[in-house]
């Protein structure tokens, strides 16, 4: 029976992190070099962790599947990063950021973690500015802020529409400084295929070189996974093509429980798909909702061009339904509202799957120059993709899978149920509950990497008894052989279908049955079909070329094999959570006016899934969530 110990420090919430840090064990400077740490993933969480742990003097190996650590998908985050600096003097505070995040997450996150995140947010901005991140500034030379979806204060720091890029380059450069100093060794184009657990402790990983196909074992005293989210289970998402669930899925099968996999975020402002060839979806930053107004025609099937539709025949539905927040309601609410108007037949664009995001009022009010200054690069990107000029014609947007709130279960110290395995950033489940607020992903990734893991990993080393383990250990050889066999099996199928065609089929099924809204019969249908599709994969997948070579079809097939297992758990979790909360909307559980209906009596908990062995139903545990500082209330943005 798995034991879930969240290890939340006692005492008032403001003091918990201080108390924890004081009580944690330390590793003295001279002793750190002897401890080796594997960091998988080099996005905001992974790069900031590798840099900070290297600075402390540990011996680090950093792995990424991309050709360079700078390509990690954090680079594509556009809008900004929240911090409770209250530079805007508009009533922000650590307490308010904490409350907003708990409420935004629809009361499905841990209070203690979220409070710590809000506390740490302040130091993140200091750290990034010191590294040379060129945040936007006011004419007086001080930092600028803007507001972002789901909040009523301006607490978001940004670097044009490329905040993720600039923060990632800051962390990447800090990590490469440690490479130059010899404390971090980089392994680009190297993918983790499995986790090695010895005597119940995470002690290494099996990797495949994507350049040569060579399978290798790397051992260490602790393993840190910062491998991002799983939105590509839906095939079409805003994630990069390479984003995958493999690392946390393999860890799950080695004992690291997964929490709330059904909590996925569908982002409201993405460019609609243009046809069957679509390979991914592109996000248009949520910041656009600060100045753009969202509308659809009042009448069904109105095919007039937008400039021919008079004001009186437009429905600014977010402003109408949610007068207090209007176009700035949180993402889950904006997405569902867009789906609802499209389902009514009022969607726009050739496929009827789109709503207008219209800047004409803002351009009239502020002038085209101001809008260009604020959003120029986003408008250009829209123009390049669609061939339409958003200064003249309203943008068309539609929701798309974007972020995974669920992930590996971790305790307050970011350690999973496998001792010595730490999971950071989007890959863990900890801070966003059932819905993440805009500009909070960057904050969490950097909080985990810069300011949490340096303390909690020392605490682990200070207590753990670590035997000498090397690459020739029997368990290392066994796990490596299993990984090798899986590659051989994929290559040996020699079937008729490409991994891409099977992935598209999985994605369509997931989007239809487990996407923006879910119901029991649909989820049961998906649970019946996914195993068949998995069978189809293993029998009929076609991967040309060799295993000992650069082989992108093989990479994709390996990741898809894990998605085909993971998707089932996502649907099972969605089926078992018989309530609607945040991004998880169950059609059976809604209020009279169609809003999400939470069930705090039965589901005020994190659902934590334990792998029970092949072909056995996973075991659902619960971690109860208690709200002592923010009262459990119905979330309302009206």
């Amino acid at each position, binding site marked *: 029976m798995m034991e879930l110990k969240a290890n939340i420090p006692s005492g008032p919430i403001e003091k918990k992190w201080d108390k924890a840090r004081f009580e944690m064990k330390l590793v003295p400077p001279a002793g750190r070099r002897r401890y080796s740490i594997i960091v998988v993933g080099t996005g905001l969480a992974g790069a900031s962790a590798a840099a900070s742990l290297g*600075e402390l003097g540990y011996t680090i190996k950093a792995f990424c599947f991309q050709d360079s650590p700078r390509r990690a998908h954090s680079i594509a985050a556009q809008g900004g990063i929240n911090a409770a600096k209250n530079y805007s003097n508009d009533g922000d505070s650590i307490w308010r950021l904490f409350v907003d995040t708990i409420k935004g997450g629809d009361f499905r996150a841990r209070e203690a973690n979220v409070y710590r995140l809000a506390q740490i947010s302040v130091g993140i901005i200091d750290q990034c500015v*010191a590294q040379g991140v060129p945040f936007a500034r006011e004419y007086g030379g001080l930092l600028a802020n803007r507001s972002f979806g789901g909040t009523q204060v301006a607490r978001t720091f940004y670097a044009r529409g490329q905040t993720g890029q600039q923060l990632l380059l800051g962390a990447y450069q800090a990590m490469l400084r440690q490479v130059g100093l010899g404390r971090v060794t*980089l392994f680009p184009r190297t993918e983790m295929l499995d986790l090695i657990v010895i005597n119940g402790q995470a002690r290494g990983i099996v990797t495949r070189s994507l350049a040569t196909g060579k399978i290798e074992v790397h051992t260490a005293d602790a393993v840190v996974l910062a491998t991002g989210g799983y939105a590509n289970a839906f095939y079409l998402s805003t994630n990069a093509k390479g984003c995958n669930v493999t690392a946390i899925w393999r860890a799950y099968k080695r004992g690291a429980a997964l929490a709330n996999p059904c909590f996925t975020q569908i982002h409201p402002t993405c460019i609609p798909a243009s046809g069957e060839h679509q390979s991914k979806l592109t996000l248009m930053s949520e910041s656009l909702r600060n100045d753009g107004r969202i509308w659809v025609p009042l009448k069904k099937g109105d095919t007039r061009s937008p400039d021919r539709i008079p004001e009186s025949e437009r429905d600014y539905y977010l402003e109408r339904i949610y007068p207090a927040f209007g176009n700035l309601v949180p993402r889950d609410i904006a997405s569902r509202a867009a789906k609802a108007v499209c389902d009514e037949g009022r969607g726009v664009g050739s496929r009827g799957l789109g709503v207008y995001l219209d800047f004409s009022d803002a351009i009239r009010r502020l002038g085209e120059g101001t809008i260009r200054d604020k959003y120029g690069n986003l408008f250009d990107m829209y123009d390049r993709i669609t061939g339409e000029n958003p200064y003249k014609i309203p943008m068309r947007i539609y929701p798309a899978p974007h972020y995974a709130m669920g992930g590996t279960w971790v305790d307050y110290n970011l350690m999973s149920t496998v001792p010595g395995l730490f999971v950071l950033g989007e890959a863990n489940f900890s801070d966003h509950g059932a819905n993440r607020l805009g500009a909070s992903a960057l904050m969490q990734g950097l909080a985990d990497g810069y300011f949490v893991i340096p303390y909690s990993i020392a605490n682990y080393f200070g207590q753990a008894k670590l035997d000498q383990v090397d690459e020739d250990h029997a368990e290392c050889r066994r796990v490596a052989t299993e990984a090798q066999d899986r590659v051989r099996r994929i290559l040996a199928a020699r079937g008729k279908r490409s991994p891409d065609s099977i992935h598209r089929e999985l994605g369509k099924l997931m989007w239809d049955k487990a996407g923006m809204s879910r119901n029991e019969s649909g989820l049961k249908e998906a649970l019946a079909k996914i195993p068949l599709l998995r069978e189809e994969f293993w029998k009929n997948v076609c991967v040309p070329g060799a295993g000992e070579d650069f082989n992108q079809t093989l990479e994709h097939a390996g990741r898809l094999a894990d998605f085909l297992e993971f998707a089932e758990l996502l649907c099972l979790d969605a089926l078992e959570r018989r309530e609607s909360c945040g991004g998880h909307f169950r059609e059976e559980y809604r209020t009279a006016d169609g809003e999400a209906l939470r069930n705090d009596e039965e589901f005020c908990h994190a659902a934590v899934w334990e792998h029970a062995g092949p072909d056995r139903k996973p075991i659902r545990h619960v971690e109860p969530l208690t709200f002592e500082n923010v009262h459990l209330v119905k979330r309302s943005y009206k």
Partner: protein
Amino acid sequence: MNFTLRIWRQKGPASPGDLVTYPMKDVSPDMSLLEMLDGLNERLIAEGQEPIAFESDCREGICGVCGLTINGIPHGRRRSTTTCQLHMRMFEDGEEITIEPFRAGCFPVVKDLVVDRRAFDRIIASGGFISASTGSAPEANSLPVSKKMSDRAMDAAQCIGCGACVASCPNGSAMLFVGAKISHLGLLPQGQPERYDRARKMVAQMDREGFGACTNTGECEAVCPKDISLEFIARMFRDYLRSVFVERPESGAGGGP
């Protein structure tokens, strides 16, 4: 739309390569070039052939991995655009399109259209950072930075590390890439303490990697998907010269011209 594609195929770093012709029919003008290649790869897999290796990840113009040389121009002829953001409506129906990897001595071919750009990481590791260890930062607003300087630093910081500048340069020079990083950090007050050391070390590493010199042809700026300005190369020269003749390297500081 219909096209004739001529695509560079090369089995590995040590094998010779060649252009292979593939006809493409009924291509949607809304497809991106990479989506067209996805479609071609699906066809090749169905025929049991090895698909064409090419790299892409974010497919929204920011990760910097997707560089292809299209009709002789890195990232193709549309200005300020990465390969992944090129759509087929930008091409003429019936056009012959030649697709090659980025060509540069310092970017060896891994396979087909994929090259190895690790030299860029090594240049950054040599000095492309501000040494500000986690935890030691002062309050963010304690040091005001003029909006003009900050915006200029951002113009340089936008570089996505794709390497089109190197691939377009007749000398295979990496100076736009290196100049952009030296300028980004050197324009900010936080970057001043290491400014000249940084320039000297990064230029030294660039030379060790074997990148060529700048002869002011300006091809790099023309193909840069992020419009990085040649002016940053001038800034790099100034900082480098000052580092050598005025600041003088500290003894034992490493790097060195």
